[in-house]
């Protein structure tokens, strides 16, 4: 159990005890921890599926699990990781905990709805878990029709309902964030003084509220066809299978930005704090988040280049896809420029931020590859695409998430994590990640299709490299799990502001009191004005 760092002072962790004080809490900080616990569970579940996949792929023959099992493994890996880990991971844990604190609020606008959101995720998660335990689902996380509606003999409906329910968790969290940012900012906290973490969560929330209902509708239609045989997607019932892909990606492409925008928000915070400088081009970075949120809705058709989409709509979607690249590039350049003449600390969170920038750059640039029509025809549905999106989602989102967890750990728990071990694990994760996924770019270009249980011999060497990398990566992920728990009891006691950060969350005790601030903060400076927290100005360099 979490022990408070300073037992005598009342904080959000020790003001009440017992299971009920957690399960019925309306405190955004405790709800954030409930989410942390939940998504960590799904992360390790999804990781276990990935491990089994990588073991199977060590040899070209299917000799570890059957084809049925293999297909279920990659499906459940995708479902667990995307819907129950990556989408809620940053907004629902760190966002929930810190978004209100960063704008000087006592809580989110709707604390009860916030608790309801967590219950919806848990109920949705239980549905999907039930499906996994009862026998699993084998459609791929993309549920393409008519396979999912007519042909699959697995737990499609239970899994899809789980995703449907957890979608409302996402919608309500987004709604809560939007209202909170509009209505709950402390005096003096103008829009242009908000930390970039808040900006990126605001942009994310817009996608959650506008995009998620579409996947809900899609799942209802899937349900109607599978259960009641109402022809929507299956051509033998008069439907159109490609319609499903349009609807699915209308949500699921923006969903990538639900995963990566909050990560960008964390990286903006980290780069600033550990350079002790405002983020270069603050306004450009803030507006870039909004641009990504809007443009993300206009590019779904780039998943359908070989799916009998017309030549002209393919051209339009390819063209529009390049527009998303620009705000992403703006962010990367501004983060890099922030380092110039800064005071750079190599604390663990900063190492993760560097890792994020590097891996996101590779993920983003290979995104330009797959947006090019003639190139995409060759690599779509191959390991090239698998590598590309893992660079964004694992190399990007998970690196940033871990960076954020390390950065805010002292605030959340009142204890420091062990720096040496943390640096080592960051390095292991970076190396393990690249060894796992870089070979997959080559595999894909060579023509190795994704979702193959059995594969031709010539691909084995690269698969073995990838599996070797995955085992390194697994070690890297287990380490923080262990030392974070260790630090709850043995970590150094952290002060209110161990990093010399400017965010309002650091202006209150660690762990924070129940109502976050003893006195409502009044904001008089821009975000990231380090003259308010440290030393004398010097010309560095």
């Amino acid at each position, binding site marked *: 159990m979490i022990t408070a760092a300073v037992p005598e002072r009342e904080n959000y962790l020790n003001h009440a005890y017992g299971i009920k004080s957690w399960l019925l809490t309306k405190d955004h900080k405790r709800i954030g921890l409930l989410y942390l616990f939940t998504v960590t569970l799904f992360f390790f579940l999804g990781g276990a599926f990935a491990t089994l996949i990588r073991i199977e792929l060590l040899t070209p023959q299917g000799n570890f699990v059957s084809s049925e099992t293999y297909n279920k493994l990659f499906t459940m890996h995708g479902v667990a990781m995307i819907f129950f880990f990556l989408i809620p991971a940053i907004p629902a844990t760190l966002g929930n905990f810190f978004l209100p604190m960063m704008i000087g609020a006592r809580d989110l606008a709707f604390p009860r709805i916030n608790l309801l959101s967590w219950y919806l995720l848990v109920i949705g998660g239980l549905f999907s878990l039930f499906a996994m335990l009862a026998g699993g689902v084998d459609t791929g996380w993309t549920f393409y029709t*008519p396979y999912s509606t007519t042909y699959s003999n697995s737990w499609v409906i239970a899994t899809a309902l789980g995703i449907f329910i957890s979608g409302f968790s996402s919608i309500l969290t987004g709604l809560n964030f939007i209202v909170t940012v509009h209505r709950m900012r402390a005096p003096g906290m103008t829009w242009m003084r908000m930390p970039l973490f808040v900006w990126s969560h605001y942009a994310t929330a817009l996608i959650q509220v506008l995009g998620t209902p579409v996947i809900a509708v899609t799942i209802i239609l899937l349900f109607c066809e599978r259960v009641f045989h109402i022809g929507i997607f299956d051509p033998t019932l008069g439907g159109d299978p490609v319609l499903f892909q349009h609807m699915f990606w209308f949500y699921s492409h923006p969903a990538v930005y639900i995963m990566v925008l909050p990560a960008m928000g964390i990286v903006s915070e980290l780069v600033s704090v550990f350079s002790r400088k405002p983020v270069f081009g603050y306004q450009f970075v803030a507006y870039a988040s909004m641009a990504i949120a809007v443009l993300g809705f206009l590019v779904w058709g780039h998943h359908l280049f070989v799916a009998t989409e017309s030549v002209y709509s393919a051209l339009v979607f*390819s063209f529009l896809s390049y527009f998303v690249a*620009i705000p992403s590039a703006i962010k990367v350049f501004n983060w890099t420029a922030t380092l110039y*003449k800064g*005071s750079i600390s*190599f604390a663990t969170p900063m190492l993760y931020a560097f890792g994020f920038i590097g891996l996101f750059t590779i993920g983003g640039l290979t995104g330009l590859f797959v947006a*090019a029509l003639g190139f995409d025809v060759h690599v779509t549905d191959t390991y090239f695409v698998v590598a590309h999106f893992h660079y964004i989602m694992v190399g990007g989102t998970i690196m940033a998430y871990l960076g954020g967890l390390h950065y805010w750990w002292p605030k959340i728990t009142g204890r420091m994590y062990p720096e040496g071990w943390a640096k080592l694990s960051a390095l292991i994760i970076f190396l393990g990640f690249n060894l796992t996924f870089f070979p997959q770019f080559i595999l894909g270009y060579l023509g190795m299709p994704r979702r193959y249980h059995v594969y031709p011999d010539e691909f084995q060497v690269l698969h073995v490299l990838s599996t070797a990398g995955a085992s390194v990566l697994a070690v890297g992920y287990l380490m923080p799990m262990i030392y974070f728990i260790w630090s709850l009891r043995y970590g150094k006691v952290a002060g209110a502001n161990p990093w010399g950060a400017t965010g309002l969350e650091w202006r209150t005790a660690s762990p924070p009191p129940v109502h976050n601030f003893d006195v409502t903060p009044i904001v008089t400076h821009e975000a990231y004005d380090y003259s308010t927290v440290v030393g*004398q100005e010097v010309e*560095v360099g």
Partner: protein
Amino acid sequence: MGKFPLIPEQASTFAPDVDHLTYFLLAVAVFFTVLIFCSIFYLAIRYRRRSDTELPHVPHGGMALEIVWSVIPFGITMVMFTWGAGVFFKESRPPDNAMPLYVVAKQWMWKIEHMEGQREINELHIPLGRAVRLTMASEDVIHSFYVPAFRVKQDVVPGKYSTIWFQPTKPGKYHLFCAEFCGTRHSGMIGWIYVMEPQDYQRWLSGGSFEGTLSESGEKLFTNLACSNCHKADGTGRCPSLEGLFGKTVQLANGAKVVADAAYIRESILHPAAKIVAGYQPVMPTFQGLVTEDGVLQLIEYIKSLGPKPIVGGGGALGK
């Protein structure tokens, strides 16, 4: 080619086109990756924190910089777009003289039908240097016809025809993969493409069992299904005559006009009520479930053969 090639064999006219595009994309990616990695390394070490109390001077924003690093990448991406679109455009326009072939995909096999009547499963023999156009149908779920050595891929979607074309440039044996997840034995839905010297191909064509050309099989089916009872050649039947139909514009009962292409004929066989020819009653029953996708393709070939002039090429007729 070394033991561990980094690119697949180049065996079609598209392969060098796609690879050149790849080299360009790769050059841009390597440049920016190196730029970002080196900048971070250099700046992070050059400006490492030397004292816990130091506070760097804050430089003022650089509007010029922001414009530079937005506009230059945008320009580069537009080159990527145009180049990629150019390759794609070529891939979606089969030449008029392309050799037509039919493919029927089903869980978990590829069935290929040659005009001359040869049928293959999970194998496709084609002559070197000749453009080939495949018209593809699926009997069940979505599949995807993928030949890495040709750099081409096209989904095969149930309920409609899709087309793909390529022109092999190198004799040999190449992988055919199903690239769209299609169920339990998805990874077993693979085959080989054999690119043969033209004379070898001719020899191959003349060998093997011969069950009649595709349109002859279609004619047999036309009779067996009793289509000719209503679709009488002289136009006196309850249904329109099919003589010379293929490629013609048909006047429909609802006032619309439609070109009688493969998609239209397929629809008229499986969903006869969807489009009624002007002057006729909707009396035709559906043949869905009675005739397979292969059968439909044979019937289309037969109806084509009734026409005075089969429409050629463009691929437009079959739709992409």
